[in-house]
């Protein structure tokens, strides 16, 4: 079956394809023979960590995935959640870390393209993008280059493809110096009765290829994403694909037009592992086989061998199964949009992925063995040695600084806290006329035209907490994402997650992973937000140095009445400022500790999920009752930064405050400690009683801190006081990021 021009398949060649000797044996057993070159390539990509989740699968099963509103959980191209009115939200997150390090513009751009395809594949119109970006420190030119390139790529692709980027997060730390993180999230809206799945069905139904032509780009993209980097990452540049947002835009429109007809049976995008992945997954899900003829595939280059066509990751391509007899209608729609369309095969009953080149069969593999029977590993776990040492650091011996005003300004200037407008202003964040809360608040809010409803959405993660305590860090990531959605007025519905970790073959990394997943799962159960799917990105290591374990949570919430959305900034002079939740003396894992004392250690703030749920419940009810005029999560930088942000992030003006903090604890912990389960709100004086009723009903503490008043930022403690000009704070906060690029 093998062509004379293809290399002989040996264990050595299999190893070069990232397959272990045991995996190679297993392939031979499945086939009852040695695979040929094309088949080896197909197995290698499908059994890669990226496609098969072979190291993570046993842990991912711990996530709760069921719930009343969940219409589609993990296992499809994206999760689907019922939001009433016959509508569903479809969303998913994906990483593009490795390609973005090698080639930041195209790496990030194709990440956006890929996640958008996952959404419209399901029948949804993509209406919002978010991204979570992590880089090394900005003082280094390489990291500025990466940030600029990644943002340019997201901007260049996302804006042109016509999906607004409505929010996200950007974080900087030494740990991401050799391995930045680029996680992209997309959300779409679909009528519930028009959800499509990546499933091939109906014997004899045509298999149709649409979109761009196939070239030699991106071959082995997924195997690259399943290895760590050595020193010569740039040599891998040819494995990064090049995106074409214009083609994707017309592909979206053409696919949605096709989906409005009754021609379509199943559809899947050709992303990672290209033609191979889409064909065998669709066949496997449908319990059928697929036979394709590569001579019918539209190509950009001459002389491509089957191996290359099957493994190409050329962008903006979709594979679909149509009802027999509908071929003409499908062709008409795609031709209208000037896109390539070709019937390349048909659905068969033998369960095989059969690849032909004309009359010659060049690969023949049971589809299920590729998509579902990849090896599953229960990899060894070991608690990392660093953990106890860092956790047990005695933070009480740290000197308490006296110049708290300077520290406040210093934190406002920290790139991790400072305003990110120079990033989000490069993204179209208003297209489709839905964005009721723009970037720069806790979560974005989109109105849903034709209903009274709204969607709140955000991305959140904290690698530092996870490094110091993966279980607690995982829990906190979910809790904080939910809190952000709640602060905007949304009831958390469900999450998707992107789990960025080091090499899973190292027991310490695998331990971090297992712990983080346990923590996230626990928080999801407690806060009743099921997981609808996600993405695992392992091998985030360069030259043996792993990144902080960084799970990123994409949270989606629902507002029954979008007019009751909230934003983080104060609204009116004279309003009262309340804190929901409690201040605790906790400094571990804080931005303050990292920035001012130069180390990332201690125990991250404790999280009592019972209290968390109560605080979120109270905040949400207060917003729904119209009691609250602003709500802001206390997180990075603590209470002082939350107060400062509420004063200086109003689009048109800054506010002064008069606040008194009565707790008797270290001033730095009270001001900058990052205790969980705290929300800062403001309200008019006439609503105090209503607020107290709500707080009492939910069994939480609501403390009056002070007032929005005057033109100074005044914070009085038992043994300290701050008095700062809000304009100075605003300048620090707004100028910090741009100052690195002048």
């Amino acid at each position, binding site marked *: 079956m093998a062509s004379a021009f293809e290399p002989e398949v040996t264990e050595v060649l299999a190893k070069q394809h990232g397959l272990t000797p045991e995996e190679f044996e297993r392939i031979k057993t499945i086939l009852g023979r040695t695979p040929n070159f094309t088949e080896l390539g197909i197995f290698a990509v499908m059994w890669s960590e990226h496609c098969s989740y072979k190291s993570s699968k046993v842990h991912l099963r711990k996530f709760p995935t069921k719930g009343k509103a969940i219409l589609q959980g993990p296992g499809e191209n994206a999760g689907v959640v019922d939001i009433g009115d016959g509508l569903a939200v479809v969303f998913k997150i994906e990483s593009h870390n490795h390609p973005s390090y090698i080639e930041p513009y195209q790496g990030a751009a194709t990440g956006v393209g890929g996640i958008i395809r996952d959404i419209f594949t399901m029948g949804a119109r993509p209406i919002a993008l978010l991204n979570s970006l992590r880089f090394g420190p900005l003082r280094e030119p390489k990291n500025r280059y990466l940030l600029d390139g990644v943002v340019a790529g997201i901007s260049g692709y996302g*804006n042109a493809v016509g999906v607004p980027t409505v929010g996200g997060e950007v974080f900087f730390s030494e740990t991401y110096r050799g391995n930045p993180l680029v996680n992209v999230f997309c959300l779409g809206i679909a009528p519930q009765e028009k959800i499509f799945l990546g499933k091939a069905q109906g014997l004899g139904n045509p298999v149709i290829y649409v979109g761009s032509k196939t070239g030699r780009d991106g071959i082995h993209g997924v195997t690259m994403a399943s290895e760590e980097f050595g020193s010569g990452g740039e040599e891998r540049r040819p494995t990064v694909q090049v995106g074409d947002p214009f083609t994707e835009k017309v592909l979206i*429109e053409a696919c949605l037009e096709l989906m409005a007809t009754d021609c379509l049976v199943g559809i899947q995008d050709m992303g990672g592992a290209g033609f191979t992945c889409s064909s065998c997954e669709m066949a496997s899900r449908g319990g059928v086989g697929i036979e394709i003829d590569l001579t019918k595939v539209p190509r950009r280059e001459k002389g491509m061998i089957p191996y290359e066509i099957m493994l190409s990751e050329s962008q903006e391509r979709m594979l679909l199964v149509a009802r027999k007899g509908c071929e003409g209608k499908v062709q008409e729609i795609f031709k209208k949009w*000037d896109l390539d369309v070709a019937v390349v095969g048909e659905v068969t009953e033998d369960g095989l992925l059969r690849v032909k080149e004309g009359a010659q069969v060049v690969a023949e593999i049971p589809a299920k063995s590729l998509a579902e029977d990849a090896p599953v590993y229960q990899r060894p776990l070991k608690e990392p040695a660093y953990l106890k040492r860092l956790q047990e650091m005695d933070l009480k011996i740290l000197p308490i600084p006296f110049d708290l005003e300077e520290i406040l300004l210093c934190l406002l200037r920290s790139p991790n806290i400072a305003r990110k407008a120079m990033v989000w202003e*490069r993204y179209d964040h208003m297209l489709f006329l839905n964005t009721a809360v*723009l970037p720069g608040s806790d979560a974005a809010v989109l109105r849903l035209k034709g209903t009274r409803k709204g969607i709140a959405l955000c991305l959140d993660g904290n690698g530092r907490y996870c490094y110091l305590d993966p279980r607690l860090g995982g829990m906190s990531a979910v809790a904080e994402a939910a809190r952000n959605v709640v602060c905007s007025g949304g009831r958390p519905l469900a999450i998707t997650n992107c789990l960025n970790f080091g090499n899973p073959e190292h027991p310490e990394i695998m331990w971090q992973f297992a712990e983080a997943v346990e923590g996230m799962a626990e928080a999801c159960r407690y806060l009743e937000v099921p997981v609808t799917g996600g993405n695992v990105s392992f091998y985030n290591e360069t030259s043996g140095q792993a990144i902080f374990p960084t799970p990123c949570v994409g949270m989606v919430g629902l507002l029954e009445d979008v007019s009751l959305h909230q934003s983080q900034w104060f609204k009116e002079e004279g309003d009262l400022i309340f804190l929901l939740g409690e201040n605790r003396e906790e400094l571990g894992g804080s931005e303050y500790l990292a920035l001012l004392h130069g180390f990332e250690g201690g125990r991250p703030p404790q999280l009592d999920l019972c209290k968390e749920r109560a605080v979120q419940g109270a905040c949400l009810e207060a917003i729904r009752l119209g009691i609250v005029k602003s709500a802001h999560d206390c997180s990075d930088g603590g209470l002082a930064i939350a107060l400062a942000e509420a004063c200086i992030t109003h*689009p048109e003006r800054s506010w002064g405050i008069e606040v008194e903090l009565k707790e008797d604890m270290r001033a730095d912990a009270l001001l900058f400690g990052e205790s969980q389960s705290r929300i800062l709100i403001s309200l008019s004086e006439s609503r105090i009683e209503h607020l107290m009723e709500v707080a009492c009903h939910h069994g939480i503490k609501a403390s009056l801190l002070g007032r929005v008043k005057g033109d100074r930022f005044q914070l009085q403690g038992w043994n300290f006081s701050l008095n700062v000009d809000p304009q100075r704070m605003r300048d620090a906060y707004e100028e910090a990021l741009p100052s690195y690029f002048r």
Partner: protein
Amino acid sequence: MRTMRFGIVLFPGSNCEMDCQHVLREVLGQEADLLWHKEEKVSGYDAMVLPGGFSYGDYLRTGAIARFSPIMKAVEAFAAGGGLVLGICNGFQILCEANLLPGALMRNRNLHFICKQVPIRVENGRTAFTNAFQSGQVLRLPINHNEGCFYADLATLRQINEKGQVLFRYCGGKGEASEAYNPNGSLENIAGIMNEAGNVMGMMPHPERACEQILGSEEGRGIFSSIIRRWKGEG
């Protein structure tokens, strides 16, 4: 009296066509149809809108390919007959490429895409597109472009100034149209212009994004309501 009928041209890569349609239909209660770019003849419309977006991916040069779309012949004929044509953002770029408006739009001075709300000053409140405003009035509208830096040669610049063809300039919150408030490097802070005949207008800011309170501003409505008033013979 019947409602006004708008035709919104849909080029491949356009993306603000549904937004314009939403505003014209749902907010202003007019009729608004999408017109496929391959149409060569269109009739029965009272005004045409070329919406924002990335026609043909902005490849080659913004608007450079779209101007050769079959429908542009119909747009030219419609404009030649005195019909009202509004180009927003990419639509403005296409109208310049098609020589229906003078000047050109180049890359933003900072070489970055910019999406944010900016103040603009109404320069001429007596036109088909601005009669709902007073001259000198300051509006806050979002811009959303990579190529919004308006350029024209000196003679053209003098002409459009003298003939009242400059409709909007970028400015500060109090209307000061100085270099400090120029987001993209446009000559003389120009944000929107019309042709000499006064029936074809192009602007970089997106009025359709500021027509509902839930989105933070209703100040863009006046552009559309001016057109409707003019059509009704009121403005």
